């Protein structure tokens, strides 16, 4: 007792001393911390009425200049250094309920008022939110504990000590093997990696495994699955018709980029602006399909400009949400209510995206044209010829035109129809019908290239300047038998005209009696100069190549191409986010609170990409590191991956997040593999995930990391590991998306003949990342396990636990097929005894022997199944899917295999 007493006294003394030390340590730097102490009070109590959305009494607390400005009363509410004269402070303590703030809400606490008084006294200095300050190199704590394995653990250990917790021991090898394989490659390790690791007793065994996994081509497929959510990738266009879109080459680009460990800054730069980088090759164009994953609306009569704008807004929101963890979309309608982004800054940033060529066109122009090898060769020869005989610049322009059909004007820009109408996105003219193309720059444009369609003989297209009564520039004969009713591209010379003019197109056909048949449909037009180099050797051949290549058969994919100066679009603020109410014009710029544009950066998408990947950008590295952490640990260091702003959940370990972000950019040169390796090599990651009741109470979601992660797998991981353990997973990589089994009747889109045609052979059993993704009817089992439709960017999947998930893994034919293959594997490898077969199955899944309790439960299931199937040969044939070779033993084993594939420890990583 005496001893106890003294111990208590000692601890009190220690606490007192600590308290004094703590207080003393505060004295030299006792100033109020704006971000930690003041901003939370403002956000919680004031900003709803005095912020980005409302400014009651003309007073806003969002920015310092606004907060110190005159309010409606004519005086400022905050006078720095003088709390006694500041209306803000007076109102907090006023006794008149009409005066006392927060209006009609509970008063601030004494402590809060004290903080605000002191803060005004100290000069009302604004601070910046942690995530808007550039990443600094953090000092790594220096604990000496044998648990600690790398710097990650130092930070984790520090917090654990603060919370009086201890880390857990390393998980057993079998658990680690499964955990790290699923995390790094999305599926179980190959047999050779697994055996090598389990047999290797050296201290390098785990690191060797990690290196093997990072080097495996399965790695790229796994991380591509994650990126497809962010890129809102789908194989359809969305909206009503939701027709097919061929964009899978982008998915393949991602797999290759992840596998090659393309530095993350280049990875982003190419996706945002690959087309604007010097001499873009196909791969760089394909990377830009990232922002062509926006939806396209084909529904009849929709306003293409409306949906083009929707796509541009989506690109802006996705860039901020997915790449910079910022809810920038709030700023679309008003200044950000909590974070320091002003309303017009949204539109300044949107202006970076507002000059790409896409116009919600049904055919999704612009497209990258992928030639067959012989034509690619021809193209290279043509460009070489132009480079030598004309100029390198002209060579480049022709290369761009043949690769993208740009610059062209889409006929959907035509208006003023007479006896004609816009048909889809084409200008359709009937006999004597006409339409207008406004504002065409004809300076030095003496040639027109026109893509059109006709199915009638003897028609002609007349082209007039300024009006239908104006100068006839040209008559184009349209001959049906030549085209055979297919699309044709014609090149015609125009007389020289200068300045900007309206051009009128008229269709005329004297052999037609009726005025009702559509005679011509125009797709696009390109005004330019004549093919250059006339008179030089090889001119005829070059021209012939050009004409042939223009119409060569190609595979294509939607990509980004920038407008030329003639097509430049102005950007305006949309007042309160409403597209139809235009505010002032803005030019491309980045928000003032963040790093400035790099000096050499142009004011276009390329410059924006340079700004975004500048190590001074405070958000990009943090957002990605946080996301990688979430993929491994189940929650981000800052839980709200999508919002690192002042309303997001603050990081549990900010210093660690910054440390890893710094390493990522500076030490690892943006290598994702290196930063992932740092994470998985930590003792933190390698802990056992068992939890005591006490720890569970203290830290239910494992945000302090006193144990290893235990998280349900993603829909992709669940499918892939099932196919893998059943030994049917196809290792085929790349190519067009596949259609594995799905029940009938999932696809019922109106006005669409598209059908789900089940893929043949091994394409049934490809990894989930290759599954065809239809936005209005995504693959059912993926949706059940929390996948999203990918209509817009999915910044975070919320995990649920539902009975529909149980029904999927119990009854979906795909899972039944897996169980059958898996049972036959157990049968082959497990020897003659049932118990051994079951034990083998478990071991193939979990890399460790089965416990007695599990074995008994499964053997019991086997026995009950056997009892039924013994007298039911029909049932056993159905269960195994085999007619002749089926027997009660194998049917019962299928039952066990299915149960194994439904184990919680299989659906989770431990």
């Amino acid at each position, binding site marked *: 007792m005496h001893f106890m007493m003294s111990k208590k006294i000692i601890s009190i003394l220690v606490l007192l001393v600590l308290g004094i030390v703590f207080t003393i340590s505060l004295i030299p730097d006792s100033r109020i911390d704006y971000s930690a102490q003041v901003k939370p009070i403002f956000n919680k109590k004031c900003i709803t009425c005095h912020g980005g959305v409302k400014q009651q009494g003309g007073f806003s607390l969002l920015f310092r200049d606004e907060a110190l400005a005159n309010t409606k009363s004519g005086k400022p509410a905050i006078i720095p250094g003088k709390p006694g004269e500041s209306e803000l402070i007076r109102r907090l303590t006023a006794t008149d309920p009409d005066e006392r703030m927060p209006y009609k809400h509970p008063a601030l606490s004494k402590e809060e008022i004290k903080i605000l008084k002191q803060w005004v006294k100290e000069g009302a200095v604004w601070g910046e939110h942690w995530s808007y300050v550039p990443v600094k190199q953090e000092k790594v704590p220096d604990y000496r504990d044998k648990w600690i394995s790398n710097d990650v653990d130092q930070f984790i250990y520090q917090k654990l000590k603060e919370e009086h917790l201890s880390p857990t021991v390393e998980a057993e090898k079998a658990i680690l093997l499964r955990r790290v394989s699923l995390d790094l490659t999305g599926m179980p390790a190959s047999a050779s990696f697994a055996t090598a690791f389990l047999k290797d007793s050296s201290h390098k065994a785990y690191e060797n495994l990690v290196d093997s996994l990072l080097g495996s081509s399965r790695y790229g497929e796994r991380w591509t699955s994650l990126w497809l959510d962010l890129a809102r990738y789908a194989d359809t266009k969305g909206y009503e018709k939701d027709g097919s879109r061929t964009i899978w080459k982008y998915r393949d680009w991602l797999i290759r980029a992840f596998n090659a460990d393309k530095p993350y800054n280049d990875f982003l730069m190419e996706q945002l602006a690959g087309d604007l980088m010097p001499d873009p090759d196909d791969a760089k164009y394909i990377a830009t399909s990232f922002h062509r994953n926006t939806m396209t609306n084909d529904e009849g009569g929709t306003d293409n400009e409306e949906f083009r704008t929707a796509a541009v807004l989506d690109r802006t929101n996705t860039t901020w949400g997915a790449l910079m963890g910022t809810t920038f979309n709030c700023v679309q309608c008003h200044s950000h209510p909590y974070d320091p982004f002003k309303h017009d800054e949204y539109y300044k940033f949107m202006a970076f995206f507002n000059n790409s060529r896409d116009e919600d066109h049904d055919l999704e122009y612009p497209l990258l044209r992928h030639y067959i090898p012989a034509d690619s060769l021809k193209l290279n020869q043509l460009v070489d010829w132009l480079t030598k005989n004309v100029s390198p610049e002209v060579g480049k322009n022709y290369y761009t035109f043949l690769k993208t059909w740009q610059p062209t004007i889409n006929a959907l820009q035509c208006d003023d129809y007479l006896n004609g109408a816009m048909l889809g996105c084409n200008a359709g003219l009937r006999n004597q019908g006409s339409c207008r193309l406004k504002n065409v720059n004809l300076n030095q444009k003496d040639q027109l290239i026109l893509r059109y369609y006709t199915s009638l003989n003897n028609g002609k297209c007349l082209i007039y300047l300024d009006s239908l009564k104006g100068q006839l520039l040209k008559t184009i004969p349209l001959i049906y038998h030549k085209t055979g009713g297919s699309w044709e591209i014609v090149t015609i010379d125009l007389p020289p005209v200068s300045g900007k003019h309206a051009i009128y197109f008229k269709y005329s056909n004297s052999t037609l009696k009726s005025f009702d048949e559509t005679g011509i449909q125009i797709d696009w037009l390109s005004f330019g100069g004549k093919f250059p180099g006339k008179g030089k050797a090889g001119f005829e051949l070059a021209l012939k190549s050009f004409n042939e290549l223009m119409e060569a058969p190609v595979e294509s994919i939607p990509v980004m191409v920038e407008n030329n100066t003639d097509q430049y679009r102005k950007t305006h603020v949309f007042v309160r986010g409403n597209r139809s109410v235009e505010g002032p014009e803005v030019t491309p710029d980045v928000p003032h609170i963040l790093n400035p544009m790099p000096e050499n950066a142009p004011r276009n998408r390329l410059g924006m990409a340079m700004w975004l990947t500048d190590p001074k950008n405070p958000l990009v590295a943090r957002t990605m590191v946080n996301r990688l952490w979430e993929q491994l640990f189940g929650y981000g260091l800052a839980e709200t991956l999508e919002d690192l702003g002042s309303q997001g959940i603050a990081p549990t370990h900010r210093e660690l997040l910054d440390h890893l972000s710094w390493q990522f950019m500076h030490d690892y040169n943006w290598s994702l593999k290196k930063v992932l390796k740092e994470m998985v090599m930590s003792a933190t990651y390698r802990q056992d995930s*068992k939890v005591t009741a006490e720890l569970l109470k203290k830290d239910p979601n494992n945000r302090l990391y006193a144990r290893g992660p235990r998280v349900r797998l993603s829909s992709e991981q669940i499918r892939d590991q099932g196919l893998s353990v059943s030994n049917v997973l196809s290792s085929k990589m790349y190519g067009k998306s596949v259609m594995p089994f799905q029940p009938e009747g999932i696809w019922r889109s109106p006005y669409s003949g598209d059908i789900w045609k089940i893929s043949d052979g091994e394409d049934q059993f490809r990894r989930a990342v290759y599954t065809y993704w239809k936005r209005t009817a995504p693959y059912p089992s993926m949706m059940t396990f929390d996948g999203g439709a990918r209509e817009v960017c999915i910044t975070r999947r919320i995990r*649920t636990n539902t009975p529909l998930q149980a029904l999927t893994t119990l009854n979906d034919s795909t899972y039944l097929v897996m169980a059958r293959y898996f049972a036959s594997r157990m049968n082959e490898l497990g020897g003659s005894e049932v118990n051994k077969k079951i034990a083998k199955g478990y071991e193939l899944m979990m890399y460790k022997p089965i416990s007695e309790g*599990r074995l008994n439960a499964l053997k019991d299931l086997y026995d009950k199944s056997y009892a039924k199937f013994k007298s039911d040969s029909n049932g056993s044939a159905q269960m195994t899917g085999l007619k002749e070779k089926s027997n009660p033993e194998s049917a019962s084993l299928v039952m066990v295999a299915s149960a194994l594939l439904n184990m919680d420890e299989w659906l989770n990583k431990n």
Partner: protein
Amino acid sequence: MSDKQNQRLLKEAEHAVLQQYTRRHFLKDGAMGFGALALGSLLGGCFGKSSASSQTLFDASNPLVSRPPLFPGKAKSVIYIHMAGAPSQLELFSYKPELAKLDGLDCPQSLLEGKKFAFIRGVPKMLGPQAVFRQRGNSGLWLSDNLPHLATVADEIAMLNAVTTDQFNHAPAQLLMHTGSARLGRPSIGAWVTYGMGTENKNLPGFVVLTSGGNNPDAGKSVWGSGFLPSVYQGVQCRSEGDPVLFIKDPSGMDRDLRKASIDAINKVNHEQYTEYNDPEILSRISQYEMAYKMQISVPDVMNINDEPQYIHEMYGTQPGKTSFANNVLLARKLVEKGVRFVQLFDWGWDTHGDSAGNAVDIGLVNKCAKVDRPITALILDLKQRGLLDETLVIWGQEFGRTPMQENREGKKMPFKGRDHHSAAFNMWMAGGGIKGGTSYGETDEIGYNIVSGKTEAYDIQATILNQLGFDHEKLTYESQGRNFRLTDLSGKVITDILA
């Protein structure tokens, strides 16, 4: 596994759920310390962040637990029937004798200026009503002869005459009606209700969707999606062909005893895992497997209309085994009877442009009406005879209306009489669930082109539905991307004129 063991497992699972619940309350009450970290996710958003109602109702371990609404509502469940494609109000609900006089005349330029249509080009002709209208019931509600059965229950109906939208294409207009936004990505009204109230019947989903007419609605599954709400709240599409719920049927060769044996084995293995790892999510999974097992019985059972008495089949015009709107309506009654909160019906094929006989307002529309008139009327009568009409809100909805002009696609005369999409004015109606029958709200001009009074937007309809269930539409919120979202966005007022 013995029943006793099962009982014990379930008890433990329930206990774990309660623990989670307590944890949630602990966080909600704003305890300091580590719990406060999570508080930020519960409070927050662009607007009214700190109000008590902005706290999330989502509990990952038991997301569908039945919850009382914010105040006692009149209705317990909703049957929302949406006619996808948008039927012509001018042939069903909107009596416009003046329009008949203008039939065949050129549309005045004043109606066309500044307007944009889906298909009308140039100057179209006016098209008089292609149906005979009569006043019905004590209330004298005008209904056309296209809906003779519905006419007999006119006094149960509150007609909205002046509904309007700003979308004239099917997909965005359907999205606006059901999610409060013409863009994709927001939760549907059924998802909001399920999020707010959970499910009363633990063996059935809280939000069920049934489609007929051969196609899904134009906006696809997003009209019953969960948007940014957890996916557990999305509508479960029950199908009248194949499995009623995807993967509900055991593989061939397996009987119920064997399924029971396999779920027992799985749960036993999982329970052993729980004793090793102590993670309450494992107990959740155990209870979800139990529920899956129960759903396998209860869903096919409720989806089976074979056992309904003959008089019911006659009343609804149902034929067991077929896919039909009538069958879906009868299923809707069965579902709400069993405690399903929100039943959403979509019937496709009302897009009467006049490009074919099937799409003509005087042919196809009449046939479509004949298929829905009897079952909808039967639903109202049947709910009433079971004492369920008072607590079941029935809605006739559509994404927009149709023009008083005849469609002239591409500026040409069409082969049949049809009408283009019209967003400015159309009709919807409600019945039951605390709605005052025999009322009529709002007015349009003499030709049904523009609204004169009682303007009703999608948001108002949504606010009214939520109100009848016991929710203030401004308070049922969920935080996503840094702000609190609600179904009605920034608008919406309850249509008090039609409330009982």
